[in-house]
């Protein structure tokens, strides 16, 4: 398998220079590196510029609703836990519209890999503030400046029970590929928050700005408090890499129903309910 095997032939519609190209590239390369076949992967996409990847990536996919990709992905995994399930979503998508799903999927340690294209803006809807826009940011929807403090997604994931919490950078595709591989190989809920420059609507956090500030974390913390502390580092220096990792059983590992086979393999023939009916006499 090569990277182009994971392309549909539909040309990407992203703006020239968009960080989404780097994420797409890294994801395809990760699939190649993991030696996976196209049919064992399901990618669930949110709605936003990021979600347009649904047309470019040659695997089974679900283009879901704005904010609702995570529960769809959990459902796919519960139905067939042999599939590798990846979620391609935006910051507006996952940290705003559907943030409750982030919390519950992390709490359940569902074995999915959530890649957030975090451009600190709503790209597709032409540049409104997102939950990660910095306080004071002036956008079309916030001409007087954002009043809210930005969400700290990594800390939020850690306190919610996520077992793999990381940050990547769309401008370093090799490192991002490896991070995605690590996220997919990790059994349990993986969050990869990707710094994704949007050249059209968010001029501050551009490639040069980020390249100058980021540094690579040596190794993942095993202590939640220490990891959370690291996530607040966001000014002179911006850490990327795995902040926190923990081995614990994933959601589907804890279902006795799935010990022998996947849910989708369960036979539908000759289902008997006679035993159950006895309760009703």
């Amino acid at each position, binding site marked *: 398998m090569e990277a182009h095997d994971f392309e549909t032939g539909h040309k990407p519609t992203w703006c020239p220079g968009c960080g989404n190209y780097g994420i797409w590239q890294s994801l395809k390369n990760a699939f190649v590196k993991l030696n996976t076949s196209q049919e064992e992967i399901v990618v*669930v996409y949110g709605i936003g510029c990021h979600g347009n990847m*649904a047309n470019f990536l040659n695997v089974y996919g*679900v283009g879901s609703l704005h904010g609702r990709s995570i529960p769809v992905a959990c*459902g796919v995994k519960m139905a067939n836990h042999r599939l590798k399930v990846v979620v391609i979503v935006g910051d507006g998508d996952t940290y705003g519209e559907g943030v409750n*799903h982030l919390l519950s999927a992390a709490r359940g340690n569902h074995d999915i890999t959530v890649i957030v294209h975090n451009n600190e803006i709503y790209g597709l809807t032409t540049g409104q503030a997102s939950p990660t826009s910095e306080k004071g940011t002036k956008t079309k929807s916030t001409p007087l400046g954002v009043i809210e403090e930005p969400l700290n997604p990594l800390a939020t994931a850690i306190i919610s029970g996520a077992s793999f919490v990381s940050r990547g950078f769309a401008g370093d595709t090799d490192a991002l590929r490896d991070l995605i591989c690590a996220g997919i190989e990790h059994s349990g809920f993986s969050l990869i928050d990707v710094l994704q420059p949007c050249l059209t609507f968010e001029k501050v956090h551009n490639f040069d700005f980020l390249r100058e500030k980021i540094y690579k974390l040596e190794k993942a913390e095993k202590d939640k408090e220490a990891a959370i502390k690291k996530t607040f580092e966001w000014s002179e220096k911006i850490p990327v890499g795995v902040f926190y990792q923990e081995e614990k059983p994933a959601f589907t590992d804890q279902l006795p*129903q799935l010990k022998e086979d996947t849910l989708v393999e369960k036979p539908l023939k000759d289902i*008997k309910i006679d035993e159950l009916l006895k309760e009703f*006499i």
Partner: protein
Amino acid sequence: MVALLQNPFKANGRKIKINDLNLKIGGEAGFGIMASGLIFAKAVNRAGLSTFGYVEYPSLVRGGHNTYQIKVTSKPYFAPEKQVDLLIALNKNTVDVDGANLGPFSGVIFNDEEFKLESSEFEKKNVFLYPVPLEKIATEVGGGKLVVNTVALGAALALVGLDFQYLSSVLTNTFRQKGEQVVNLNIKSARGGYDYVREKYADHFSFKLEKLDGPPKFVMSGNEAIALGAIAAGCKMYVSYPMTPSSSILHYLADHQLKADMIVKHCADEIEAIDMAIGGSFAGVRTAVGTSGGGFALMAESYGLAGILETPLVVINVQRPGPATGMPTWTGQPDLDFVMYAGQDEFPKIIIAPGDPAGAFYGTAQAFNLAAEYQTTVMILSDKFLGESIYGTEEFDTNKIKIEEGGILSESELLNTENYKRYEFTETGVSPRSLPGQKSGKYVANSYEHDEFGFVSEDPDNRVSMMTKRMKKLVTASNGLPGPTLYGEVEAKITLVGWGSSKGPILKALDLLKQEGISANFLHFVYISPFPIEATAKILSSAKKTLICEGNYTGQLARLIREKTGIEIKRGLLKFDGRPFYPEEIAKAAKEAV
């Protein structure tokens, strides 16, 4: 002394009434009223009698007034009745609330050590008091307050003259899981009440129950029938967020998930529930979600998602009065409009509104087949009345359930398909489906309007073809689905029209009308979308007079019938007080109309 009284029927030269009893148990919430009602119903069911149990309770865990009424008959009678023949009053409030509904020669079982009733007052109305020291007996057997209701059940069984074994065997089954001690305690409690009444009021009561022979019946709620239908149809994933009156489906399935070899998940909210179900369905598992109107309102966006992705999905809506939180523990049929038109734009929706547990069981099983076959949403539209009432129902025949998997291609078929198109334009509107994991079946199930492969497309011609393809599925489906059922004679003075759970009360109203020499029939709608236009028009255009009975303010089915057929039903019995239909009020409205 009461015991010295002669039997009132005998005294008046009348016969004792056999196998026709309306019993009501009332008390404070938290004192086992629900459990007692079910146990009594099962006991008489074991004696071969037919039962129907209707429960009323406020949205409280403790306090408030709870009642369970059980109609016992020799033939099925699935309707509540206002007039009470035997009242078990576990508190004074029960008598205050239901005293006025006590019929001639009826009786009241109560604890005269807790509150006093003036027997002469009651006897004026031919109502007889049967005081039983419920708490004293409960304490003597070592159970205390917790088993007072069981003592009362024993007392009631003795009063109606049924053998004790029917009750003791149900108690054994009910409490077996809690251990032998609990079983014995309950049997002793019931025996205490039973013996007390046998000694003191033997043969006094005017209503008697006698054992009948017949095929075994099951005492079951509509919600349980839906749950069993889902299991029998191979539902392997049920995802829900608790909401009265749908929660007992979740509870039943959660409790039996290992036996049924399925996953039952209580999600963080209804949006998560339906999206998880859509994910499961995309991956090839038969899935369902269950909720009530408010929860379904949250699901509406994803209802449309299932529609455009063409993933099969069964949605169960057990209605209650709204809007918003409304009246959680009461009944109504207020959501027909809402579910017909829920979601963005238009997509094919199948809606089934069963009328009783058998309909709910087979209808739910069929819903999974229809969802798979037409790759769209199928709703089971029930309500609190059907969902939480208990019915003595005939045995279900699982051989009648044939699982149709719908057009899922095998891997070899996929390998032989060049240029596989998941959303291919077809005659029927149904396109070949593949499942993730299968070779050569890759596609994107796209929330955006898409081409035959699933890729986003805003081309106007493609849009028209794709929209037409989806909507065609409803036309295809309509060919295979039954029209409304006409009960009663074809030639009648008046045709009653209703849908879903009002079936039992309306059928009973037909009997009442017949007794009064009024010929009436009943057109019952179960399959509401796709709407059976021709069958409806044929029957209603020749009806002499029509009367719609619906549990909502505006007559939603009547409007739908008018929209689809142009036929206007001018008379309506519309109920939106949270209470079910009573046969008497239906008969009265029909009489006024003819």
